[in-house]
């Protein structure tokens, strides 16, 4: 009788597992209560995926913490209910209101990790570095089920197998720092699923991962969801991920649900202005050349001060040489094995790198983490010295060999070429006001007096669309997008001709990303800047760059003007990258069959692209300005 009921329940798929009604969460900050989530209601049906979409600070993570009862100690549920319908597998069917349970109570602890579990964005910091995977993954099982030690081991082993560890037996005794980012997230998923929970909360599970790894993790979550029949609450700001995963979508904005419903309805017919704006803010590949992203909060920039001060390049200066010419650049790292003597092994962080960037061009460099793109940018800035090669810079008609500059002339040269960092939170000193930050370049190079500094700081603020009244504030009082604008302003203070932008938008929300990308585009147009734009996001690079280089294992494998790269990609690695990008369109789901890890291995590429340790290959011209790396043999 009971079993019969259960099958009927399982088939009734729209039966709710979790019902949130009028949920409100507030935080005590400096003695006053600040609401983070106001009046949120939605339902998670059994076996389905619900996605919460929203920008940072919209309350989506707080909602998930409330469901698990792991709100920070200064937060509390001030209103509403979270009705959880226990799965009848372990206990008699019953409904509990999580909102009324004390977070440290036994009932709540029994739910956490057993019935409801969570995976976080950053697997490295979310796992303990000093406990083995067996210990950490098996812990929840030991807590919630009466099982013997060998059973725990077996369960963890089969879980690691399911989550796709290449060598589960070995992984049992490994520590998180010994694993790659993708494997760490797989370990995190194993940990969350070891008790076969009814609800998995995935809080930005792929945001910190490369696109190809992201696609694999998404596929894994999907297949495990089908196997265990669990519900998933997916929290993300990436509509592409949503399109591939969700059955229902909840859109949050400023702590409130502004729109919710089945995914088809929301994607085909978005109603709320925020959701519409979100769709308009995502760069896509089929954009026209002069199409602009619509930013949620457009910035008005005023560049006429700087335009007046800049001397345009003359025709002769332009034609003298490429703006930046990288020749045969390479960086090798030697790893020592053993401590006394023994063989050294060489890692080519950057290998045989040749690239010319023209004056006024915007060159995009794409690659996954570990491909050497940051090593390259550091060599260009002379933060690390290359093993071999040459960098020649066209300084308005004179060629300068960067690697041969001595310290004083390098210092002078730094004015020509500036750098914008990825993380605006750590690249601005928290102890300096914006005014100090913007004046520092002038002070370092001994330019002007303090009145001049102040005037220039005001102009720079106007240049990035910030109010000059903010000059006396400290970085912490700005949002991520504003901080990135400040660091762009700082980079432009000395009027450089070339900017290296290392992942300038990857730490930002989609809506803010559009704002920064538009700003960068406008600045380039108004000030005739040359960009080297480094990113892992092909769509972003496509929006900002004229020409794109794809980098893998320290080498450029394909260089092409943006149109030919996307319309006619040649290299298998470029194909793999393109295939792994989730589109925010329901008609273009990810093709998981393309996600073969072998596309990342130069030794597994099909001929004629296959490279070996001895064969670095050469770039072959296959179309107009379109180069692909092929083997020499």
């Amino acid at each position: 009788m009971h079993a019969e009921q259960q099958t009927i329940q399982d088939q009734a798929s729209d039966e709710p597992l979790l019902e949130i009604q009028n949920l409100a969460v507030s935080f005590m900050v400096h003695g006053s209560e600040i609401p983070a989530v106001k009046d949120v209601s939605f339902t998670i049906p059994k076996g389905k995926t619900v996605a919460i979409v929203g920008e940072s600070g919209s309350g989506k993570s707080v909602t998930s913490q409330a469901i698990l009862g792991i709100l920070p100690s200064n937060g509390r549920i001030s209103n509403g209910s979270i009705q959880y319908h226990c799965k009848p597998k372990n206990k008699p069917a019953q409904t509990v209101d999580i909102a009324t349970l004390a977070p440290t109570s036994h009932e709540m602890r029994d739910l956490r990790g057993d019935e409801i579990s969570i995976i976080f964005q950053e697997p490295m910091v979310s796992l303990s570095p000093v406990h083995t995977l067996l210990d950490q993954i098996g812990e929840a099982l030991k807590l919630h089920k009466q099982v013997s030690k060998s059973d725990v081991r077996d369960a963890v082993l089969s879980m690691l197998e399911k989550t796709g560890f290449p060598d589960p037996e070995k992984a049992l005794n490994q520590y998180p720092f010994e694993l790659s980012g993708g494997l760490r997230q797989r370990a995190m998923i194993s940990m969350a699923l070891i008790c076969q929970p009814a609800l998995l909360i995935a809080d930005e599970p792929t945001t910190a991962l490369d696109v190809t790894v992201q696609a694999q993790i998404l596929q894994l979550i999907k297949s495990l969801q089908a196997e265990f029949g669990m519900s998933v609450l997916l929290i993300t700001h990436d509509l592409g991920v949503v399109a591939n995963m969700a059955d229902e979508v909840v859109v949050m904005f400023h702590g409130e649900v502004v729109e919710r419903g089945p995914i088809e309805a929301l994607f085909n017919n978005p109603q709320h202005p925020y959701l519409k704006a979100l769709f308009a803010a995502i760069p896509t590949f089929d954009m026209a050349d002069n199409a602009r992203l619509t930013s949620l909060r457009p910035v008005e920039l005023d560049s006429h001060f700087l335009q007046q001060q800049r001397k345009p390049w003359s025709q002769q200066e332009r034609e003298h040489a490429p703006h930046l010419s990288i020749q045969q650049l390479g960086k090798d790292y030697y790893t020592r094995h053993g401590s006394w003597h023994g063989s050294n092994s060489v890692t080519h962080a950057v290998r045989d790198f040749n690239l010319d960037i023209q004056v006024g061009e915007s060159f995009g460099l794409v690659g996954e983490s570990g491909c050497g793109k940051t090593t390259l940018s550091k060599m260009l800035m002379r933060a690390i010295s290359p093993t071999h090669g040459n960098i020649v810079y066209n300084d308005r008609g004179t060629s300068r060999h960067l690697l041969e500059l001595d310290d004083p002339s390098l210092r002078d040269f730094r004015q020509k070429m500036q750098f914008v960092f990825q993380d605006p939170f750590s690249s601005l000193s928290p102890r300096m006001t914006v005014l100090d930050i913007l004046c520092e370049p002038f002070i370092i190079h001994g330019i002007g007096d303090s009145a001049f500094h102040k005037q220039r700081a005001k102009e720079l603020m106007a240049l990035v669309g910030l109010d000059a009244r903010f000059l006396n504030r400290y970085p912490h009082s700005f949002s991520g997008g504003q901080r990135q604008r400040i660091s762009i302003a700082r980079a432009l203070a000395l009027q450089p001709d070339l900017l290296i932008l290392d992942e300038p938008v990857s730490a930002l929300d989609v809506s803010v990303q559009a704002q920064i990308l538009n700003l960068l585009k406008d600045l380039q147009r108004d000030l005739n800047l040359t960009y080297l734009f480094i990113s892992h996001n092909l769509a972003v690079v496509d929006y900002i760059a004229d020409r794109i280089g794809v980098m893998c294992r320290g080498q450029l494998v394909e260089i092409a003007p943006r149109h030919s790269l996307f319309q006619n990609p040649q290299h298998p690695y470029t194909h793999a990258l393109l295939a792994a990008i989730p589109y925010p369109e329901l008609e273009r789901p990810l093709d998981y069959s393309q996600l073969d890890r072998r596309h990342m291995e130069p030794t597994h590429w099909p001929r004629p692209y296959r490279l070996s340790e001895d064969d670095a290959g050469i770039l072959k011209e296959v179309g107009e300005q379109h180069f692909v790396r092929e083997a020499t043999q």
Partner: protein
Amino acid sequence: MLKYLLKRFLVMIPTLVVISALVFIIIQLPPGDYLESHIAELESQGESIDPQKIEFLRHEYGLDKPFWEQYLVWITGFVQGDLGYSFEYNLPVAEVIGDKMWLTIIVSFFTILVTWLIAFPIGMYSATHPYSWSDYSLTLVGFLGLATPNFLLALVMLYLANRYFGTSIGGLMDPEFMDQDWSWAKVKSVLEHLWIPVLVIGTSGTAGMIRRLRANLMDELRKPYVVTGRAKGLGETRLLVKYPLRLSMNFFIADIGSLLPSIISGAEVVAVVLSLPTTGPILLAALQSQDMYLAGSFLMFLAALTVVGVLVSDILLAMLDPRIRLQGGAQR
């Protein structure tokens, strides 16, 4: 790992040789030798000495030999377990230090034990209840302990005990046991006297330990893996002990290196004030009177213990923290 240990042991040898040479040089640095300071002392008391006797003594003690020869005699004896002869006490160094070493080790051991027993619960409580009234009051007490000089505390204790309890708390045992063999009564007497120096010496250490534990633990408590553990359904106490406490232990283990030498020395000033029969005051006196074999042996002991202590903490760190064990080129 075994290779690493072997390497560390081999590196210790030249380190100790260099230290021994330095120690010997530093002891010899002040002008003159033990005999000269001894003569000066006697002359200031109005006594005169036969220069022939001086010459005889100087020859007898080997003080007329060249510097390096003196060093060689001392170091070869040291390695063979002969610590040399103390001029001041007219006894072999081993006998001078002997009994006192044990008492010092007892005092230090209990001090360290008490420090840990008090500091750990308080530090853990402070870190888990930060910015609460209880945290603030414990912090205040901690700062007081940290800021009060130990010798002052010792003087205050001496005064209070004498004034209100009418007992002398100096020394480590009642006077009648001083030169007796160990007996139950003596042990009891030692334990009765022990708590005052332990408390006095331990205060600043305890306060410092509380502050460091609190700071380290609070850093760790903010880390996301704590939330992960909570999300698994771990209880708060077990969560605290298994994850953040374990990860905040590194500073504590690293401390052991400096702990070992402080077991046989340290707290000299307090020992003088409380007239404890520990090794601290002996070292002080030996350095003042240029009693070179006594001072030299002592300093060598400290150096050896420091080197061993650092090795022990390095090994413990590697055992406790796989990041140290497995990163940096080491292979499984």
